[in-house]
């Protein structure tokens, strides 16, 4: 079973059991040295493991990261090679979404 922020990946690969968690990348289990917080997350993961009844279930865990996304410092110090490679596509995707939002508003 998978503990994953981007639970929607399930839509393209089909994952047997997913525990969705709204934590920053690189720290899905919780904050550093927060033993109790990490235990709470894992106990919920165990509930999914034992409680899922069939393939493809996504359980949303009830945790919220205490910092704003920009303050979580999860990104690498340098832009990853993949992002640099696809930067034009990324900008284009953003432009298309903004255009779509503008049309629908």
């Amino acid at each position, binding site marked *: *079973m998978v503990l994953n922020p981007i639970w929607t990946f399930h*839509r393209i690969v089909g994952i047997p059991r997913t525990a969705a968690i709204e934590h920053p990348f690189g720290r*899905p289990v919780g904050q*550093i040295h927060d033993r109790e917080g990490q235990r709470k997350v894992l106990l919920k993961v165990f509930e999914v*493991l034992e409680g899922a009844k*069939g393939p493809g279930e996504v359980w949303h865990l009830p945790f*919220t990261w205490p910092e704003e996304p920009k303050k979580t410092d999860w990104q690498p110090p340098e832009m990853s*090679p*993949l992002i640099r490679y696809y930067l034009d596509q990324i900008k284009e*995707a953003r432009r298309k979404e903004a255009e779509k939002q503008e049309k629908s508003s």
Partner: protein
Amino acid sequence: MEQEQKVVDPYRFLPPGLAAWVRSFIGEEDYKGQIPWTPLKKPLSQCTVSMITSAGISLKSDPPFDMEREKREPLWGDRSYRVIPRGTTSQDIDVNHLHINTNWIKQDINVMLPMQRMEEFEKEGVIGRLSTSCYSFYGFQWQSTEFLDTAISPMAEKMGREGVDAVLLFPA
């Protein structure tokens, strides 16, 4: 902090451009193919549980994952894996990954591969036991089927030999 009936926002931590790009290839429709399913055959308190992370963790005594080739070839990701034995602590590891800030994991392995937490749960009888071996691979695998042979199959075979009943995967 906990909320009742939360629906996780999968893109909360992504910058807007990156979120739009990811959404563009994920789409809105549910998966239509066959999804593998292995029911849990016994209570968790009797299960041997293993863990895998895609965070690029290696023991300091092992070769690190290859970042240099990825810098030269942006669509290539290291296709090997490392065994992370139970008992491994933050002091024993190195972390190499070009897509995340690895400093948090180096400070506390449990945020990514919760080794000490699982050992606690074993002692408390919440799980049967933590497997002798846990694993890390390098999470950036861009359309690579070779990776199935170089990492997934050998990890699965080793889990079979160690009698693993359930596996927790922690993507970076």
